[in-house]
């Protein structure tokens, strides 16, 4: 095995790229769960976002329109979840699963004609001479716009959740929907908005996978990224800053195992490729062993709201 082939600066740079899809999807799910809704359909929304973004980007030649389409696709799928759980009071766990199963089939259906096509390339932003700074320039300043958008979304969401009136209402709905309802807030409308936001973010994450990270369309290409994003939210104790940390951790493991595979490590490839999932489980265990409520789970998470008055 030749470890010297692995350049740490390039490794860090690709770690940031690998973390972006799960970061985007995880941030979206964080907002949804802050509103007290558990949407297990992240995987489905991501893959629908991936194919919608890919199809539109290939069709129009514009990656920007592709990302817009990815967000719209994810949001439309999440709207099904929103109507079922908020208006028809369906079980959130079952509906989320249905969303994932449907999304996987539906995306494969749309994506039939797109296998083997290359999407239009996305150029990296350049910061002039800054991008040529050794180490720092390579790691941080040679990425595409989506990476920076995802990074900016972290402090943005922290501020929105913790420092604005909107965030306060969102948290109130997620902690105690009956009290929020009694105060006159439209619980169902607020949750609907949160779910659609989560869907759009998951769709963006999916589009990032198919347009930049891979960049190709294959059936089932998300390969559990949506589930890892769900686990990240628990890992992050519902805090955006920690979510970034978690996304980088998992991005790091993914990139490292790919590099080890390429470097010809003596561990079989299958064991390397299962490592991100195993480590996700281990981290989940460590986090949940410290106690669910204390870890910051919204109190009304996963409970249906039905106004009787």
């Amino acid at each position, binding site marked *: 095995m030749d470890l010297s082939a692995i350049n740490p600066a390039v490794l860090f740079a690709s770690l940031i790229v690998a973390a972006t899809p799960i970061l985007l999807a995880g941030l979206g799910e964080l907002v949804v769960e802050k509103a007290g809704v558990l949407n297990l359909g992240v995987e489905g929304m991501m893959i629908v976002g991936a194919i919608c973004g890919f199809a539109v980007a290939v069709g129009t030649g514009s990656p920007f329109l592709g990302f817009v389409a990815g967000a719209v696709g994810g949001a439309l799928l999440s709207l099904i979840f929103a*109507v079922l759980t908020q208006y028809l009071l369906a079980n959130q766990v079952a509906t989320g699963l249905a969303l994932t199963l449907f999304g996987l089939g539906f995306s494969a259906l749309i994506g039939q004609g797109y296998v083997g096509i290359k999407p239009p390339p996305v150029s990296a932003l350049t910061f002039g001479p800054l991008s040529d700074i050794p180490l720092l320039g390579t790691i941080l300043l040679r990425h595409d716009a989506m990476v920076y958008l995802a990074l900016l979304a972290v402090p943005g969401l922290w501020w929105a959740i913790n420092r604005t009136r909107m965030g306060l209402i969102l948290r109130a709905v997620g902690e105690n929907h009956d009290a929020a309802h009694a105060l006159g807030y439209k619980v169902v409308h607020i949750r609907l908005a949160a779910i659609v936001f989560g869907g759009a973010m998951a769709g963006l994450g999916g589009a990032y996978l198919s347009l930049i990270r891979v960049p190709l369309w294959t059936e089932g290409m998300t390969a559990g990224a949506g589930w890892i994003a769900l686990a990240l939210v628990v890992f992050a104790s519902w805090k955006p800053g920690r979510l970034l940390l978690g996304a980088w951790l998992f991005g790091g493991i993914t990139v490292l195992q790919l590099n080890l595979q390429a470097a010809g490590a003596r561990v079989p490839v299958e064991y390397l490729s299962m490592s991100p999932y195993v480590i996700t489980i281990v981290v989940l265990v460590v986090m949940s062993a410290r106690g669910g409520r204390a870890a910051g789970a919204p109190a009304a998470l996963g409970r249906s709201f039905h106004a009787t008055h």
Partner: protein
Amino acid sequence: MIRLEKRPTPSRFWTAATPVLAVIATMVAGGLMFAALGKDPLEAIRTIFWDPLFHPQFAGYSRPQLLVKAGPLILIAIGLSLGFRAGVWNIGAEGQYIIGAICGAAVGLAFYPAAGWYIFPLMVIAGALGGFVWAMIPGILRTRFNTSEILVSLLLVYVAQALLASVALGVLRNPQGGGFPGSRNLAQYPAAANLELIPGTGMHWGVVAAFIAVIASFVLLQRHILGFNIRLSGQAPRAARFAGVSPTALVLTCLGVSGVLAGMAGLFEAAGPSGKISIDFASGYGFTAIIVAFLGRLNPVGILLAGLLMALTYIGGELAQFMLGLPKASIQAFQGMLLFFLLALDLTSNYRLRLAKREVA
């Protein structure tokens, strides 16, 4: 303005009627989807739901397939339904199915080429144990560390798939297979084969096990204290605790039973219809079984019917692929749609819809 009024107890009529309505709604929506794909919707629906059973040319082949496909679906769904009733969400049955198949097949291959009546039963036990162990991981993590069994069981599916690839290319690879991945064909090894019991019906040991599971689960839920405790924990967790039901034991029981059944389903598949452990052995039965469990209203008899219906869509889907050129994925989307309609219509069994004038808030 429609107002919802919670029913004191779920309506029995609507509980039975919603799956039927959901199937009809899915046929309509699916027909629209097929029309959008440029296919004749009526012909597509007929090919999926009617031709596998009654087509003069293909029915002879596809009728036995109904039981072959329904067997694992029913077996897995029965196990899942117990957990779903108690609020224990094992959504990683696909992983338990794979591990069961690997363990069971490994035992069979270890005996190759010996003959003996005991080999197949040992394989079944190994398959059940494999599924059990794989399901105990989320079970123990949930009861010991309060980790979400939903995420752990699902993530373990990906681990199981990687293990499957590893053994198909490694320890279980057929030494006489010319270097191709995949194990020896168990279906051609008489002591280990899970053969058709009655020729022309598709009935193999997995289907027998599925029928036994349906009956056992029916008796369990109706007549046994454990079944009562499972139902109680799902409907009123606090009351269940006061009644002395141990949540830990219940979680472990539910996950254990579903793991055993999923593992057995995997072994029956590996030793019978599939015949061998290969990279593409996993066929998604573990996920489709979730739809079967809900479509069957978590009720054993309902699951039996739902499993047969879902098997029909699998076979009809293959037929539609072959005859109409419908993509394989459209059936998956179709099955997902069915679950949506079912969940949406569920409202009618728990709530009464009342037309009301808009009240002043």
